[in-house]
């Protein structure tokens, strides 16, 4: 059965504000970084920063840090299966042999 501890964790207000500050700062970084061209790495860098932001939202705003570990598992499974979908579709697309027209 579910764990029955009555007390829920409350996060102090100051931490909330700090997290918002951090998120805004990272937004600025995202924009700033985008002005520089890293070639193929552009997308990777942008996604990495976005994931850090997402991590903070998940951990603090969504209280995942203080919650049942099961939710991380759930979240992870979702992301994992998306990667599977991406991986195989991508594998197909890049390994296709596209013969040219012979006419």
């Amino acid at each position: 059965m579910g764990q029955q501890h009555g007390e829920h964790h409350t996060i102090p207000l100051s931490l909330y504000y700090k997290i918002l500050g951090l998120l805004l700062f990272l937004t600025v970084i995202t924009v700033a970084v985008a002005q520089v061209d890293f070639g193929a790495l552009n997308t990777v860098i942008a996604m990495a920063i976005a994931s850090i932001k997402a991590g903070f939202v998940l951990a603090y705003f969504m209280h995942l840090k203080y919650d049942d570990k099961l939710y991380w598992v759930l979240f992870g499974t979702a992301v994992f299966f998306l990667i599977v979908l991406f991986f195989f579709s991508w594998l197909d697309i890049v390994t296709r042999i596209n013969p040219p027209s012979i006419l």
Partner: protein
Amino acid sequence: MSTVKTSEHRHHAHHFDSAEHEYQSSKFGTWLFLVTEIIMFGGLFVGYILFHELFKETFKVGATFLDWKLGALNTVVLLFSSLTMALSIYYAQQNNKKLVLTNLYITLACGFVFLIVKYFEYTHKIHEGLLPGRYFAYDGPEVAALKELGFSNLGLYFSFYFTMTGLHGSHVIAGMALIAWLIVRAHKGEFNSSYYTPLECVGLFWHLVDLIWIYLFPLLYLVG
């Protein structure tokens, strides 16, 4: 009927052992729902990334048509609304009805701001003919330049732009409707430190909407 009026202190639906039990279950259910949302949006992201890899130039040019300042503005608005959403739960835990309401109103207002900004972005694009796939009607120098490089499907970029932001926008609207419902209930004084399950669950949903935008913003506006 198996539910008891929830406004009363520490009451819970009949098939649960306790209010805590119900709270934990509802949260579990909400998380599962969020997982389905993540996968649904994720499908779109997968499509986006695949086509992005196939048609790099198209996407790069496409992104230049978006105003990153508006995107950034909306990012800030949503991040801020996430904070106020979290705060409303915090104040419910403190039994502070007034600040619960204030924060909910701010969150709702942020939702409106977001939609208004989106409205301007949309009308601008529609006006220019920057429309999805078949209806793409823009005919500037960029299109010709792309053709030179062998890409003639700029419309595809806008297909992704409109479907992704459109789906996200509809989630913003849904979230706002839920927040409005919370406001009504909060006015009735239904939330307090021992019962705030709806706040928590809608909150999670709202954060997810924010989360998705965190990815959409750089993908669509910045790297393209």
